[in-house]
């Protein structure tokens, strides 16, 4: 149990990012491979605030989240302007290109020196099941589930949610009905950007300072998002936490060096089972 709880830090990050992935896939028809990379790049601004401007941890974290929303919103603007009428495949391939570009910038910024990232929750722990569990990871994991529930409710019950759902089905029609498709697209991107920055900020304080691992968080979160069949945010959040805990449980065993294979076994199995009836590449 204690070993499993140690996986909450990573699991909470997977959960938050998985919720973003499902949200973007459902609302905007894009699978955002660059989700955590964008969050990671924004998180670097907190370094600047903390080490050069000498802000406290909370203001630095807030700055990073705002920058995450702005950066992601900018990407959303590009997508809304040029890629609104293209296929899911094209849009998602564009995010792969963004992943490559953002990782290049991130590598440049984090060039290996030892940086201190702000830890807004100052690493305090509570004692659970005979082990110390960082408060941050509990907040993160619980927050992911709460977020999933709230967003699901928002989509189902509110006017904004109805607009978003209309936009996701038929962007052109929604546009003609007066729904501000471009604005909503940017809004969803910005929201996802802020959430993924938060996810990365939770992981960073107890982690090493190189950029690619932040980008890889998305790939693991994808396993969780697929558990929800890219439709259900709550299942994705729970799945993310489960994947993190499973990885942690495997670590001390003989399979330890393959612990990262866990999400990918899940991905492959779920995909093949989910799509087993797809006989042809297109409908008639």
């Amino acid at each position, binding site marked *: 149990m204690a070993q499993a709880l140690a996986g909450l830090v990573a699991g909470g990050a997977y959960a938050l990012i998985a919720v973003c992935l499902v949200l973007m896939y459902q609302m905007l028809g894009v699978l955002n491979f660059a989700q955590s990379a964008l969050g990671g790049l924004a998180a670097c601004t907190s370094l600047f605030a903390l080490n050069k401007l000498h802000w406290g941890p909370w203001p630095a974290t807030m700055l990073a989240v705002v920058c995450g929303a702005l950066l992601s919103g900018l990407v959303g603007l590009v997508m809304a302007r040029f890629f609104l009428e293209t296929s899911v495949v094209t849009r998602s391939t564009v995010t792969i290109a963004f992943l490559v570009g953002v990782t290049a910038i991130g590598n*440049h910024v984090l060039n290996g020196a030892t940086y201190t990232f702000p830890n807004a929750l100052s690493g305090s*722990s509570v004692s659970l099941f005979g082990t110390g569990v960082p408060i941050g990871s509990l907040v993160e994991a619980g927050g992911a589930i709460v977020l999933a529930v709230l967003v699901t409710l928002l989509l189902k019950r509110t006017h904004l949610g109805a607009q978003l759902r209309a936009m996701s089905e038929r962007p052109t029609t929604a546009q003609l009905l007066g729904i501000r498709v471009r604005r909503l697209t940017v809004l969803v991107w910005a929201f996802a950007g802020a959430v993924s920055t938060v996810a990365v900020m939770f992981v960073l304080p107890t982690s090493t300072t190189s950029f690619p691992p932040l980008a890889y968080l998305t790939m693991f979160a994808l396993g969780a998002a697929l558990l929800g069949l890219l439709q259900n945010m709550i299942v994705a959040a729970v799945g993310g936490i489960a994947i993190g805990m499973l990885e942690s449980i495997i670590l001390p065993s003989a399979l330890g060096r393959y612990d990262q294979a866990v999400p990918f076994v899940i991905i492959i199995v779920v995909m093949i089972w989910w799509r087993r009836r797809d006989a042809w590449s297109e409908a008639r």
Partner: protein
Amino acid sequence: MFTLNRRNFQRRPWQLTVAGLSVLCLGLAACASSGGSGGSGGSGGSGGSGTIKVGQITTISGGYPFGDTVKGTQSYFNMINKHGGVNGHKISLVYGDDKGTPSQAATLARQFVLQDHVVAMVGNTSLIDCITNKGFYQAEHIAVIGGGTQPLCFNQPNWDPVNAGPYVGHEVMWDYTFNQLHPKSVCEIEQNDPSSIAPYNAERAWWEKNHPGVKSLFTEITYTNDATVNPTPAVAAAKSKGCDTIELSTVAPNLVAFVKAAKSVGWDGTFTCLGSCYDASVPATLGALAEPGGLGPKDKGIFVGAELAAITSPNPNVKQMVSQFKIDGTPANFWSEIGWVSAMVFVKGLEQDKHANLSTAQGVLSALKAMKPINTGFAATPLTFGPGSAHSPNRGSQELLIQHGQWVIAPHQNAGTFMKEPPLPPLPG
């Protein structure tokens, strides 16, 4: 509205391909002047007749903070050039960042040797240079003096590490740990790096064979590197296995992460690490956690095996380095020390033969092979390049401990001197 944008967009790839083609033309133009002007990655010292060009390949980005090695080497050359250089020749340095990828390391080596015509590599501190460029350096008769990060660096004819390395480092660390710290159970947390795990296992087997009763105290936990950034599960595993000492062989930022994770999980115990953990950022970042007792009553502190002299050493050579670093604004840490000491061995070795031919790599290599060992004041044993098919002149290290926010010499060692490699039969093979 959408089609208008699409049409505008359609023009852009054309421009990109034009840009690409122009880069290509630039490249071909550069090739046409074969052996074109170097000037890559910055150089120190002006060109001019009789200047010796040396190169350095270091992993600056990619998660490992060896970047200060360049500054350390440059500082030494600055000092030497002020006094006329080596045998009357000034030295200029070109350096590159290999980012931990073999393609970049291989390309840089060829750029420096084939394009810039460097005569030696000084200060190389890279994760993969020893592995990737091993054959190339031999084929081109290039001598390399630098910081060895891999066991393979200690086992090549052209590579001369100035640090003690993992083998000697582990031997000394275990000697100190078992004789002075008396642990009940040691958890070795290893990154999943196949090139260092096998030698490590061989070293440990040898140690256990020669120290009966020690074997049962070791527990091994591996964790995959790079892709996850999360040491918490590994520390939790150590806690569940009941270890009171965690042994790491990683770099300083990772040590910081591990200690923070230990605090959050509630593990109480002692950390030990090799010389790669020796960095001022550790006490600065960890604060009270780094002190003995910071994690709990069983915490004896954070022990690091410094393979070169502590910055605070009273040795005059060390003081000289510190003052030159102050002039150049070079940070003083293990990595800049390696850069400095590598340069020192290089220059002092060449100075031993006033008539050495320093205009070719072969000439430099011959001079270094004929070199007599020198007392640097930085290491437990005299350092040299020397003949032979493998080089590992530094055979000792100094255990350091963090106290009152500073690295100090750990107790039960003679202040100012080193613990030498314990007298064991050499490792087979």
